């Protein structure tokens, strides 16, 4: 999950499709995000590289739509519905995830265990 400036970012990602749940008049996904290019990357407990300003999943509510879909705490969100999440501000990320006219969000997330799984399967 480290990146070299100027080079395209490569990562092993998992596709996760979350159906939003209607609670009253809000559509919730059931997780919390942290990070962004306007935030302090050093305080992110989940990132390997402490200068990584990407969006990370900090909490997953149990039995929520995100957990059902397979999202785990500590995942880094790379794309939401095709929109890039690696270089966005915190607020932009929130907006992309909470569009009122979308019922389903398709995330591309990456985590460390994915890379290791790929490595193991290749050996």
């Amino acid at each position: 999950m480290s990146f070299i400036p100027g080079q395209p970012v490569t990562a092993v990602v998992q596709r996760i499709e979350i159906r939003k749940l209607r609670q009253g008049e809000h559509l919730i996904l059931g997780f919390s995000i942290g990070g962004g290019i306007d935030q302090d990357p050093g305080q992110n407990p989940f990132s390997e590289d402490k200068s990584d300003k990407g969006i990370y999943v900090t909490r997953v509510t149990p039995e929520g739509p995100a957990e059902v879909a397979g999202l785990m705490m500590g995942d880094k969100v790379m794309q939401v519905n095709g929109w890039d999440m690696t270089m966005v501000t915190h607020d932009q990320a929130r907006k992309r995830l909470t569009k009122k006219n979308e019922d389903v969000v398709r995330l591309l997330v990456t985590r460390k265990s994915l890379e290791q799984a790929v490595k193991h399967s290749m050996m």
Partner: protein
Amino acid sequence: MDTESTYSGYSYYSGRSRGSHRHGERSRDHHKSRSKDGSRSEKSVTINAPPAEPLLGDSSVLGEEVQDDNWGETTTAVTGTSEHSLSQEDIVRITKDLEDSVGLDCRRYFSLTLAVVLGLLVFLTPLAFLALPHLLWPDKLLVCGTACEGLFISVAFKLLILLLAVWALFFRAPRAGLPRVFVFRALLAVLVLLFVVSYWLFYGVRIMDSQDENYQGIVQYAVSLVDALLFIHYLAIVLLELRQLQPAFSVCVTRSTDGETRHYNLGQLSIQRAALAIIENYYRDFSVHNPALLTASKSRAAKHLAGLKVYNVDGPGNNAATGLAHSQSRAMIAAAARRRDTNHNELYYEEAEHERRVRKRKARLVVAVEEAFTHVKRMQEDEQQQQKKAPGDVMDPREAAQAIFPSMARSLQKYLRTTRQQHCHSMESIQQHLAFCITNNMTPKAFLESYLTPGPTLQYGRERWLARQWTLVSEASVTSGLKEGAIFLLKCIDFSLVVTAKRIPYIQLSEEFIDPKSHKFVLRLQSETSV
């Protein structure tokens, strides 16, 4: 000889039993240690004569204890030494005092007369230059005009200023006698002498011989002499006073007996002047030298040496002399290492016990002194008229001190005994200090401060100062300047001060400019949003 030591121990103990049981406990310790030594010497008595050291050590300690017990306590019968015995140190001190007083005075008077003669010469020379033409060839002289008379005033005032300046710089009571001549002063004296002599020479040859009539020229010559003398005085100020003000060396002064160390910053001085500055600071900064505090380590060292004796069983002439010495020393060291040494254990418990005892006695002392101070109160002026106190009740400070002293005397004496300071304070000095504290409205804590912590040497009586017995021991010449790494010793009778000099480092200071507008801050956030 062995029985002698135990006998003296018993007599000491029996005499002391009249005191409180605390004394008994201390003498029991003494008795215990002495009997230990006695038993050790007993072991060696079967082979050889017992070692002389522990016995001598004991009797000197005994002598000290009896000598110090000269007030407030009943004295006991003495076995070996008498109360008026002089130790070797006292004899050395007295003879040195006698020698020094005679030698120093001679040198001081010699330099004093030289200085007076030179001063008179310097002051009278311009006046002589002005007066001699009037005396020797008055008829040939041209009349002195107004400019010339103006120069008279100038000479007069410059001489007055020179007089005041010389008085300020040189007419001070000498504060020390240094071993070698003070180089800068000697150089300046020689310079002044040469200068005046050369002026006289010129005057004698060119003016007196030719009997010059131009009086104004002569007066201007005298004025130039006085000007040059003022400049030499300026040179004297710079060389003698100003040059050493800027600190250039940092000296580390360590006392050899207990390792107390201080650091001072000195300028560029000769070794003897640096030694003088250090000694003056010693009297102010170092705590007073107390030989009674060193007996513990000396007795430990004596016990170490007394424990082993090496015997050559092969008979004489078997080994070469050096081989014998080597084998002996190696055998002693090996035996000392093998012996299961519990000295550290003893030291630890002894020190803990001593600490506890000191604190206990200090607590008793503080309480006694506070109680004593509550009994005396300053009388107000109107009290005498209102209550009409009898004149017998009204006391001056000395009488008040004498009145409250007995209630604290015992605990104070016990405390001083425990901290081994009893020979530094006499009863008279304690009463004087008490009267002083009462007069100046000091609290009991202020009164006790000078007894709880050992103060600088100047705080105690003159007999502790030993100001006339310093010896400077140095490998380099004492008139040479301080250098990086210079080491010299200042020996007093009981101890010496080891002085090491180091140059103060050259400091390179650089500058960094901060624009006041450059102080800007951003917030570092890490917010979490739930979606």
